[in-house]
């Protein structure tokens, strides 16, 4: 039965090989089981995709060669859509038997064609003892063995690459099927939820063939059902639930034919559910002293930065690229922070990933592309970027650092400045950085010993009273004064005598100085003025007749009036005939003063 399977596999592989041989490169391939039991017969098949050469098999010691070589030839011609493909294949099959336990290697076979030698791979075969099986019983096994449904005939394992990891460190989980009985397929595979992990499915080729594998001293056909990459997301002990799957087992039904053995017996497919053990993973937390620029990546990283040019026009863009490469969960890698001058405008970086998930974790590169636009001219510096990650090998945080970049932003060309608004210095708000009290005053200002408050003093208010008192006193005195001055004519009347006396005095002065002209004038003025004031007659209205009547009214005697007229006549005459003597003038003076005295006495 096993042989049949192997034959089938060989045929399938030959067909595959013959298609591959169309490349016309000579290739020598070998197929063999990697694990056998002592006494087991097995075949080693070399296939060459070219004929005409000479094939030489290596020595097979310490294996015992049973038969070989069996040579076969196959060729195929295909025309697909008018394209012709031809392939040929020569196979050389040797049947060997293992004799002793141990690991052995067989040197490569050689194939010589036109003086060129092609080598196959070396063979590495492990031979184990198998007490439960009889070495020579492969052809006539007890027929009931296949139906034996003992627990160890078929089982599934959940294999983890590591069981003690740091948070975020990748684990490869492999679901592997081991079987010693014929199966026709898998059904209803139920993978665990992987709670507490970030799960990524790895590309696993579909299970078409089983490999021989030694498991605890027993040879099983084994195959990988599915592989996963797990990133632990929480710390502590995490238990992974078992994998459950249903296997379709081929079970013989009915009797075996006595002539043809098993070949014509009928088979029945029975579903059987198997489950793996649950697995335990211990996830250690990362050390507490996280650097501030920690990116969240666990693994091994490399950091590189590139700038596309070092001179640029103002308002033109510069490309600044930060490339992070290495192993670790690069998908979660955060963009490194740039500490740039506020005069550089930065846009959110564009990130590109080239990430491969393999059985050793995630590897690849992630790059962040920044667009920097300087808004002012001048020298600018992009400070070195730091990026920290947790190195699982050393168990420490490690900081990566790029170099410092410098670039120069030129003032825009004349053309571009024409386009911008005239006087185009762009204005912006002042940036405030901190807050503090203002500095002390160095100038003492008006420093004074504290004074007493005048507002609280009684003398202050008495000042108001004093001012008011003075005001009212002045007011009162003035009022009295005004009362007395109320009648202007009376004043003039009262003063008339004084004024006349003053004039007469001046006249006598003139007489002494022999200024007779002025003397007469003064006398006249004195008399006219006196009479005007005394009689309350405006000077313009003064006539001789008016004066005479007014004086008579006041009760002045005729003689006095006659004397006045005489004096007036004399004066007027004397003014135009200045021959009169000084004695005459003196008598005139006396007469005038006499008249004034008389009037003064008669009129109050």
């Amino acid at each position: 039965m096993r042989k049949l399977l192997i034959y089938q596999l060989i045929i399938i592989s030959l067909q595959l090989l013959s298609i591959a041989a169309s490349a016309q490169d000579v290739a020598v391939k070998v197929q063999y089981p990697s694990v056998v039991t002592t006494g087991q017969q097995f075949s080693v098949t070399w296939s060459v995709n070219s004929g005409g050469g000479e094939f030489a098999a290596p020595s097979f010691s310490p294996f015992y060669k049973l038969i070989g070589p069996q040579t076969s030839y196959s060729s195929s011609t295909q025309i697909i859509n008018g394209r012709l493909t031809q392939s040929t294949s020569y196979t050389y099959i040797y049947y060997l038997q293992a004799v002793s336990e141990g690991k052995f290697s067989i040197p490569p076979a050689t194939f010589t064609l036109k003086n060129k030698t092609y080598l196959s791979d070396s063979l590495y075969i492990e031979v184990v003892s198998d007490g439960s099986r009889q070495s020579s019983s492969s052809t006539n096994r007890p027929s009931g063995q296949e139906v034996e449904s003992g627990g160890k005939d078929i089982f599934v394992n959940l294999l983890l690459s590591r069981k003690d990891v740091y948070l975020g460190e990748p684990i490869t989980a492999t679901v592997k099927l081991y079987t010693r009985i014929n199966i026709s397929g898998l059904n209803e595979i139920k993978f665990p939820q992987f709670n507490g992990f970030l799960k990524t499915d790895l590309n696993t080729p579909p299970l078409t063939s089983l490999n021989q594998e030694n498991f605890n001293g027993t040879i099983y056909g084994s195959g990988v059902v599915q592989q996963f990459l797990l990133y632990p997301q929480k710390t502590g002990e995490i238990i992974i639930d078992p994998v459950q799957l249903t296997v379709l087992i081929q079970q013989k039904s009915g009797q075996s034919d006595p002539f043809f053995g098993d070949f014509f017996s009928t088979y029945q497919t029975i579903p059987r559910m198997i489950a793996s053990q649950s697995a335990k993973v211990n996830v250690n937390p990362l050390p507490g002293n996280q650097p501030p620029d920690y990116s969240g990546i666990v693994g091994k990283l490399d950091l590189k930065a590139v700038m596309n040019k070092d001179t640029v026009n103002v308002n033109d863009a510069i490309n600044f690229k930060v490339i992070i490469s290495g192993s670790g969960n690069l998908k979660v890698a955060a963009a490194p922070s740039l500490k740039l001058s506020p005069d550089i405008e930065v846009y959110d970086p564009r990130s590109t990933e080239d990430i491969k998930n393999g059985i050793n974790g995630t590897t690849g590169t992630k790059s962040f592309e920044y667009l920097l636009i300087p808004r002012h001219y001048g020298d600018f510096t992009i400070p070195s970027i730091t990026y920290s990650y947790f190195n699982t090998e050393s168990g420490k945080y490690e900081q990566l650092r790029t170099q410092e970049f410098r670039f120069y932003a030129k003032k825009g060309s004349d053309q571009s400045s024409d386009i911008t608004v005239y006087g185009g210095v762009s204005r912006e708000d002042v940036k405030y950085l901190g807050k503090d009290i203002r500095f002390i005053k160095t100038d003492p200002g008006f420093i004074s010993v504290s004074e007493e408050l005048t507002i609280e003093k009684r003398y202050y208010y008495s000042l108001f009273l004093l001012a008011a008192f003075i005001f009212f006193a002045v007011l009162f005195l003035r009022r009295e004064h005004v009362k007395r001055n109320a009648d202007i004519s009376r004043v003039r009347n009262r003063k008339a005598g004084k004024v006349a006396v003053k004039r007469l005095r001046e006249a006598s002065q003139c007489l002494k100085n022999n200024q007779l002209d002025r003397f007469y004038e003064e006398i006249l003025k004195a008399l006219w003025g006196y009479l005007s004031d005394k009689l309350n007659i405006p000077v313009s209205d003064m006539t001789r007749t008016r004066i005479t009547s007014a004086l008579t009214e006041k009760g002045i005697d005729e003689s006095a009036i006659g004397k006045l007229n005489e004096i007036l006549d004399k004066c007027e005459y004397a003014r135009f005939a200045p021959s009169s003597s000084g004695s005459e003038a003196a008598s005139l003076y006396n007469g005038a003063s006499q008249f004034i005295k008389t009037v003064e006495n008669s009129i109050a």
Partner: protein
Amino acid sequence: MILIVSVAKAQVSGNENYSQGVELYSAAKYQEAADIWIELYNKGYRSASLNYNIANAYFKLQNIPAAILYYERAYLLDPTDEDINYNLQIARTMIVDRFQEIPELFFVNWYNQISLLLSSNTWAFLSIISFIVCLVSVSLYIYSTRYLYKVIGFWFAVSLLVVSSSTLAFSLRNRYLVHDNHEAIVFSPVVSGKSSPDASGTDLFVLHEGTKVAIEDEVGEWYEIRLSDGNKGWIPSNRVDRI
């Protein structure tokens, strides 16, 4: 003459100590600078700059209530100074208590602002001068024979009477604000306001250092205070310092 000389001497020594303090402050020796200026203050020297500098030194020493006290004192002497107002605002942001202040009526605010522009004595001097000029204008009105002079004299007298009475009011207000010490700053880290002036009174509210309160009444060792939000209570008088 002797009096003038002695005043001038005092002024000189005050200025010297003042600039000494400025040097110490510039060298970040805030405690020493504060000591020198406080000594000046205790000798009776008064100026807005002196109070402002003392407050700055206390601010640097993290003594916020004292800083606020002296900023308030400086503010009363020069309410228009921008630096004083700015630093007072900053110091106020560092105290614990925050009140929904009842804003004063705008004309009360103006009244206070104007009355703080000049010292009480200057206002008093202006008042008496304008009163005298007012009386002179009245005389002009009474005695002038020309109509124009009469009109001028009348309106002068009326306006000067208004000026005189208002400057007198400003003088009184200035005395009330600056010299009457009706406001105080809480110096104790925590003090509770009681419903009556004794320790057994019911606790009404809790104040923290740096808060400004108005003193309404005084009974023994207790002040009745009014908070900016209008609430009243009694606190021990040694927990606050009058502005």
